[in-house]
């Protein structure tokens, strides 16, 4: 087997007669692209021809689409969401984006990262200072340049496999034929209608998207044509169930094994397989179901005359394409249909915004400009227009035209705010992907959103909105100069510089956060950049691979806004770095922004924010889904107050002896990989480093697990020690035999196919699947691939070089044939764990201790024959390196096991997603999440907002679905006339003694029975010897008993007190800070 080699993306072959424009990375000293007069040898034209017509891309695409291979390293996290077929469709799609203000550039970024074939940027206007509030590719030096031309270079850098080009003149309708999707930002309804009519009637239809961000208001319109097919409406894997019985009746009733709940819905289509007895069901025909319950459903079919069900069977959902009939904009404006809600507390908002955006369009047409911020006259005019339009709607008229809301729209309408651009950029980017591929369900026609709650609570004087000739003028025109100052002086901690972190840093730089003289932004991440990050961690380039995420991200963010006062650290955040992130660090912060990818770190940061009473803005993503959560001192519950459901795990005996799906096989495969190649070599090294200490630990443990571990160490150094590569091949071949033949034969011997349980029921009943041993064949590529990977990795653990012939199938097959494989004899007394609650596979026996001693004697003899410095190499599983044979080994283990149990096998990519526990990730949901969070940042920094003004969000862009909710207030504990929450901390001063602390609590009506500092108990009322501590200072007890090392600057110790009231009921009280100086 050749190792998987990533093929380089080829945009055009040398023989292609068609030329394609793209940006050359060479720049002259003044930063402008070089205008080459000749085409390059591979047919690329290096010029930026602003007025050139884009050549016919459809034809070009046809020539080259077969040459494009997905870069599976770069797009691995995206492949986990979309799959290969969707990615191929993206790679064949040409997209036009017209309007390169902040929203246009966000859309372009997301689409280029996703990997379409080409993106053409269009704009007829030039960069203004105003644009720098939201467009991350513009700098002050770009002012006066055409917007599209100023954008192209930095956008091309995001993904060299996508051809990024520009158009700067007026668009003709005929030019639209070159694209599969066209997106228009900042376009009038009149022009949009005309363009959309052309797209709608074009054959094939061109998907048309119109999007706008107006201050804190956003609108989106989609028309994907009269007959658009959605191939996959939700992105979920087809659900399945294991059949327990099927009745002979009309209609047929199906019950399933209660191993897992069914995930079907009424009306789903399902297909049956492997049914024994009622074999009529195995015809592969989709059948509709109804009356779905957790473990049963009814078929819409008469099974009376079918054969009688005997056993077995799997039922699998058949996902159905869905056809959508979009209306063109002209019709949809009059008859918009049902609106997709974003906030279910604003039921009446979408129809109002539908009216409001039309009114704004009319205002703009009449006045030749948008309303001015702070202009009451303009706002009043907008209201009048809206009322006038509403009057003309007849029965569809709204009862109330909310003039207050229209006033907010008027004031902010000129502004494109970064958070709104990031949020809508994510949504629109996703709609483009849907239009290109049919993956996920589109927004149907209109979507509206507003975040007026982000505005300062106090009315602002008109002078607040006055432009200051600053890059933040657009933002100032919405929020006023006072809040802008607060943003600039904020001291922010961004925890993590991965996908969320990159998006946040870009957003914060554009908002001007920490860009003032008092401001400071600290970002930390202990990770380095890998290729798989580049598809969504958009501040990184391929030349940054291997560098620290935090420093590269910080440098890039400072490039967006040179005034950003940013400090990049490479520390992990946790208890071990409290010397770096010390008290003064946290105390000086204004707000903390999580950009993390694991729950452990989130809980730690949350605990620090609670302790130091700092706002924490949290977000997380999973494929097309994301959520945000605001943790605001005293207003909301903290992150740790809610519990997340535990991840589902199959019982150990299922994974180890009775798998019935590929997930079980992959879990087993990874476990075996880690045991054979990492844990056992590490144990060997631990033994060789200090045999006496190691054996002492083993004897102390003295249990079955220690015995098994020691047995593996002995095997490694004795019978299975490898001195040559041929030894490794022998080992691998015998591993194959043990895993896939002998163990299965033993299982079938212990539990024959007709075995019964103690209750008389068949042992091999669903979900258990009866296994078949594999017969090794050197002509079976899967077998050879497994032996190859296993041999090479085994050699690596022993430091044996791999000969080149071992990497060829022919060479290896010959060597494998020479391996002598002993015959298998089943053991009558073999113990196989079947208890679903078992947590270990080791079974105790009376002579464990004796066996341990015997194994030790063998080890002593082995050590004699080893070189004194001999050590093994422990191999850590690395999922993202396709050349290290790790995934080859795991996929081989899993698929051979799947073959044993007649479970469908998977390809290496899919195996990587499951065994590597890859968190699926795409740029769009990430960008959207950060947009939502930054809309909340305005509220935090304004400082006047109540809990009901904040919003937590869950969104699933695949469906699409939005669920916004007010944060949950903190739980209030009440005691006598006092109450408190997790945010409170009690302070006791005066360097008290233990007795004084107890008395202080008693005055509150509380009887303290236990006092802890860290993990040490300072006092417990049940221990009489603790009475001796009554007269000692609490701080001295903390030092002497708890061993607390207090920093020199610290003036208090924190203790946790467990109390009860006078009725002996437990009372949770806040942390108590005892001040000693």
């Amino acid at each position: 087997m050749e190792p998987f080699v990533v093929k380089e993306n080829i945009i055009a072959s040398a023989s292609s007669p068609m030329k394609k424009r793209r940006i050359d990375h060479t720049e002259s000293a003044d930063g402008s692209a070089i205008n080459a007069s000749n085409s390059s040898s591979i047919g690329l034209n290096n010029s930026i021809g602003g007025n050139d017509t884009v050549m016919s891309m459809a034809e070009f695409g046809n020539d080259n689409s077969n040459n494009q291979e997905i870069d599976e390293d770069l797009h691995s996290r995206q492949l986990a969401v979309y799959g290969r077929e969707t990615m191929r469709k993206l790679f064949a799609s040409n997209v036009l984006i017209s309007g390169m203000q902040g929203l246009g550039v966000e859309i372009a970024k997301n689409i280029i990262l996703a990997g379409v074939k080409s993106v053409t940027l269009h704009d007829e206007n030039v960069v203004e200072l105003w644009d720098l509030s939201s467009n991350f590719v513009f700098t002050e030096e770009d002012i006066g340049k055409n917007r599209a031309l100023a954008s192209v270079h930095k956008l091309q850098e995001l993904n060299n496999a996508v051809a990024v080009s520009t158009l700067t003149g007026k668009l003709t309708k005929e030019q639209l034929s070159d694209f599969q999707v066209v997106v228009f930002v900042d376009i009038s309804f009149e022009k949009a209608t005309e363009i959309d009519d052309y797209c709608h009637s074009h054959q094939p239809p061109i998907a048309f998207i119109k999007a706008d961000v107006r201050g804190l208001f956003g609108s989106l319109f989609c028309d994907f044509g009269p007959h658009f097919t959605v191939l996959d409406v939700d992105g979920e894997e087809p659900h399945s169930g294991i059949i327990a019985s099927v009745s002979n009746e009309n209609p047929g009733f199906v019950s399933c094994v209660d191993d897992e709940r069914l995930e079907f819905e009424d009306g789903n289509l399902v297909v049956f397989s492997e049914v024994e007895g009622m074999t009529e069901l195995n015809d592969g025909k989709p059948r509709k179901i109804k009356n779905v319950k957790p473990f049963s459903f009814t078929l819409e079919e008469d099974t009376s005359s079918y054969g009688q069900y005997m056993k077995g069977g799997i039922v699998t959902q058949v996902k159905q394409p869905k056809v959508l009939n979009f209306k063109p904009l002209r019709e949809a404006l009059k008859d918009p249909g049902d609106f997709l809600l974003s906030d279910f507390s604003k039921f009446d908002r979408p129809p109002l915004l539908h009216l409001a955006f039309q009114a704004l369009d009319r205002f703009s047409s009449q006045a030749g400009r948008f309303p001015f911020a702070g202009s009451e006259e303009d706002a009043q005019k907008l209201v009048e227009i809206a009322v006038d339009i509403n009057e003309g709607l007849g029965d569809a008229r709204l009862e109330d035209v909310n003039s207050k809301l229209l006033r907010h729209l008027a004031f902010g309408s000129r502004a494109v705010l970064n958070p709104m651009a990031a949020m809508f950029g994510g949504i629109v980017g996703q709609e483009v992907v849907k239009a290109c591929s049919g993956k996920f369900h589109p927004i149907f026609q209109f979507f509206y959103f507003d975040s007026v709650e982000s505005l300062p609570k106090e009315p602002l004087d008109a002078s607040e909105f006055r432009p200051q000739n600053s890059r933040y003028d657009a933002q100032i025109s919405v929020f006023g100069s006072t809040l802008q100052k607060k943003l600039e002086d904020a001291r922010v901690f961004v925890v993590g510089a991965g996908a969320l972190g990159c998006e946040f840093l870009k957003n914060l730089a554009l908002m001007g956060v920490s860009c003032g003289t008092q401001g400071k932004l600290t970002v930390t991440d202990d990770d380095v950049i890998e290729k798989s990050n580049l598809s969504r961690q958009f501040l990184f380039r391929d030349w940054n691979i291997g560098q620290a995420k935090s420093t590269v991200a910080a440098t890039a963010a400072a490039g967006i806004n040179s005034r950003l006062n940013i400090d990049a650290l490479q520390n992990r955040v946790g208890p071990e770095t409290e010397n770096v992130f010390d008290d003064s660090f946290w105390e000086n912060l204004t707000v903390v922004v999580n950009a993390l990818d694991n729950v452990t770190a989130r809980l730690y940061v949350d605990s620090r924010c609670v302790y130091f009473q700092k706002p924490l803005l949290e977000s997380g993503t999973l494929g097309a889904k994301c959520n945000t959560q605001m943790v605001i001192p005293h207003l909301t519950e903290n992150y740790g107050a809610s519990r997340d459901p535990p991840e589902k795990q199959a019982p150990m005996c299922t994974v180890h002896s009775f798998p019935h799906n590929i997930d079980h096989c992959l879990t087993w495969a990874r476990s075996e990989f880690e045991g054979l190649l990492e844990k056992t070599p590490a144990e060997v090294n631990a033994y060789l480093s200090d045999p006496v200490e190691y054996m002492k630990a083993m004897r102390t443990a003295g249990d079955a697990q220690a015995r098994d571990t020691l047995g593996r160490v002995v095997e490694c150094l004795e019978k299975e020690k490898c001195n040559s590569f041929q030894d490794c091949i022998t080992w691998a071949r015998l591993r194959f035999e043990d895993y896939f033949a002998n163990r299965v034969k033993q299982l079938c011997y212990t539990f024959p196919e007709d075995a019964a349980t103690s209750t008389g029921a068949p042992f091999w009943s669903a979900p258990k699947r009866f296994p078949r041993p594999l017969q090794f064949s050197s002509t079976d590529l899967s077998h050879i691939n497994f032996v190859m990977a296993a041999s090479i990795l085994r050699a690596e653990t022993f430091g044996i070089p791999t000969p080149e012939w071992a990497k060829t199938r022919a060479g290896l097959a010959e060597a494998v044939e020479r391996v002598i494989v002993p015959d298998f004899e089943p053991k009558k007394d073999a113990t196989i764990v079947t208890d679903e609650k078992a947590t270990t596979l080791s079974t105790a026996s009376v002579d464990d201790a004796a066996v341990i001693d015997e194994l030790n004697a063998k080890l002593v003899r082995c050590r004699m024959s080893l070189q004194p410095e001999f050590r093994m190499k422990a191999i850590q599983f690395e999922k993202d390196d396709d050349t290290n044979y790790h995934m080859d080994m795991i996929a081989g283990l899993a698929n051979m096991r799947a073959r044993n149990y007649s479970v469908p096998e998977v390809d290496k990519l899919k195996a990587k997603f499951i065994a590597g526990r890859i968190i699926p990730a795409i740029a769009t949901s990430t960008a959207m999440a950060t947009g939502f969070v930054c809309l909340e940042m305005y509220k935090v920094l304004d400082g006047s907002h109540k809990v009901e003004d904040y919003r937590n969000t869950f969104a699933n862009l695949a469906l699409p679905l939005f669920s916004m909710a007010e944060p949950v207030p903190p739980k209030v504990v009440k005691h006598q006339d006092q109450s408190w929450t997790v945010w409170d901390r009690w302070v006791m001063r005066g360097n008290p003694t233990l007795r004084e602390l107890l008395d202080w609590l008693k005055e509150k009506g509380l009887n303290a029975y236990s006092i802890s500092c860290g993990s040490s108990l300072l006092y417990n009322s049940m221990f009489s010897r603790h009475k001796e501590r009554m007269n000692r200072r609490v701080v001295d007890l903390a030092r002497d008993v708890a061993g607390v090392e207090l920093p020199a600057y610290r003036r208090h110790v924190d203790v946790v007190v467990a109390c009860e009231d006078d009725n002996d009921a437990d009372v949770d009280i806040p942390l108590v800070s005892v001040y000693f100086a």
Partner: protein
Amino acid sequence: MQVFIIDEDGKKYCVEVEKTTTIADMKTKIYDATGMENAYQYLEHRGKIVLEVHGGTTMDDYKIKACDIFHMSDRMRGG
């Protein structure tokens, strides 16, 4: 009356409740329908998270009506 639960993957469930059904009892019915344990159910209804409070708040107290929609979602760990 019937209320509808939509989970984070868009799956819809129908749950039967009465005006006097408590929030805790509704969550038990949702557990029966979805398998999500009560303690992990974060239900958004008209822009607020449904909270169990001592004393057994009922559907009527929360102004929950027939055919109302609840969104049930978790937090995402990626980033």
